[in-house]
């Protein structure tokens, strides 16, 4: 009996430790920097989780580190076309009623929905920043998002990224007319007016 109690206690202790370890699920990712600019610099230490993407087919890419499933962009004039520009808002009071929501997301989430999933959304600032690759520029994207993008190619044939500003869902605090935008030329972020046009990439999952 004592042994059972002891074993249970040991398992309980183990479970508690694991719950504690479970807290650390937001580990930072590698930036992608591979060039070494000196001892202790990013390219020397290369801190962070290594990246791992899986092409799920049907125009979706899964990031196995963040758990997010991303829309692939195309060059075929479809709703997924990498060159299509959308607005975040039509103006005051700066709500999410621009074409990024009313055209782009509405189309993806209209039954039967893109890739059979009706819960596509736009990423927030942190989610969007998670797919930048500082080891590349024009575009600052990982290979999974930047593979041969010839004119006319569909999302089962290619994967495209425009080296421009992509809209996030995050509003600039204190300036409700502005939204956070991630620029995929080099990977920086900036603030843009919600009526300005920007590129979009849909995401799902991840909560």
């Amino acid at each position, binding site marked *: 009996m004592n*042994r*059972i109690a002891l*074993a249970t206690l*040991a398992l309980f202790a*183990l479970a508690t430790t*694991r719950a504690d370890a479970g*807290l*650390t*699920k*937001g*580990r*930072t*990712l590698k*930036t992608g*920097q591979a*060039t070494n*600019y*000196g*001892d*202790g*610099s*990013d390219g*020397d*230490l290369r*801190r*962070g*989780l290594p990246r*791992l993407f899986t092409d799920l087919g049907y125009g979706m890419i899964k990031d*196995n*580190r*963040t*758990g997010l499933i991303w829309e692939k962009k195309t060059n075929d004039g479809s709703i997924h076309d990498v060159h299509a520009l959308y607005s975040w808002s039509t103006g005051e009071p700066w*709500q*999410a009623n621009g074409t990024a*929501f009313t055209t782009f997301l509405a189309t993806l989430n209209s039954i039967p929905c893109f890739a059979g999933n009706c819960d596509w959304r736009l990423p*927030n*600032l*942190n*989610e969007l*920043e*998670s797919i930048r690759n*500082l080891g*590349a*520029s024009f575009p600052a994207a990982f290979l999974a998002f930047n593979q041969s993008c010839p004119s006319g190619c569909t999302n089962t044939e290619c994967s495209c990224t425009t080296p421009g500003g992509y809209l*996030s*869902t*995050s*509003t*600039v*605090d*204190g*300036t*409700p007319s502005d939204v956070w935008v991630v620029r995929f030329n*080099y990977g*920086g*972020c*900036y*603030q843009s007016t919600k009526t300005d046009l920007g590129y979009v990439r849909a995401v799902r999952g*991840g*909560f």
Partner: protein
Amino acid sequence: MTRYLVPTIAALLLIAVSDAGAGVTKGRPLETGQTTSYGEGTDGDLRPGLTRLFIDLNNGVVKDRRTGLFWEKKSNDGSIHDKDNVYGWALSLPVPVVGETFSGSVVSNFLANLNTPPCFAGFCDWRLPTFYELQTLVNIEKADLPAFAEFDTGCTPGCSVTQCSCTGSDFYWTSSTWRAVPTYAWVVYFSTGSSSARMKTEGGYARAVRGGF
């Protein structure tokens, strides 16, 4: 004895295996901090990402329980931790050559000081954060000083890292170089929350980090 040993080992193995599987998804994005909603489907409405959890270790160090990183607190006391100290990323070479190598005063003065035995908080592996690591400290819900409370508390003149927590309202260096122009490094502005690249010989703030993955 084996009666208990076998199921215990089996349970341990099961836990280890499930952990290895779950281990793939350990880089989940963090909450941005945005709580104001600007319509359905926006950040403040959905609030995707892991909730933030910081612990002040009371030795001048704050641990981020989500990322596993240990951060140096900044002070207002004129010490090596003072929020107003500025450092260069690279050495200024004879004009017009600007250095690309990580050898400025942020290395030779700031990090060297923290890592000289007995070292800051007893650890000698302090380093400069990568661009992605430093961006995890931005709280976009606070426009005036986009930092979390653990990095912006009671910053009165003379206070030390065990008494307060400060953030300078300007750009902080990261260890990441701007690939396109290697004489520039990525910086994060704790004035606006945005980021860009600055010439490595400029003077910028620095916050040390250790641990992580």
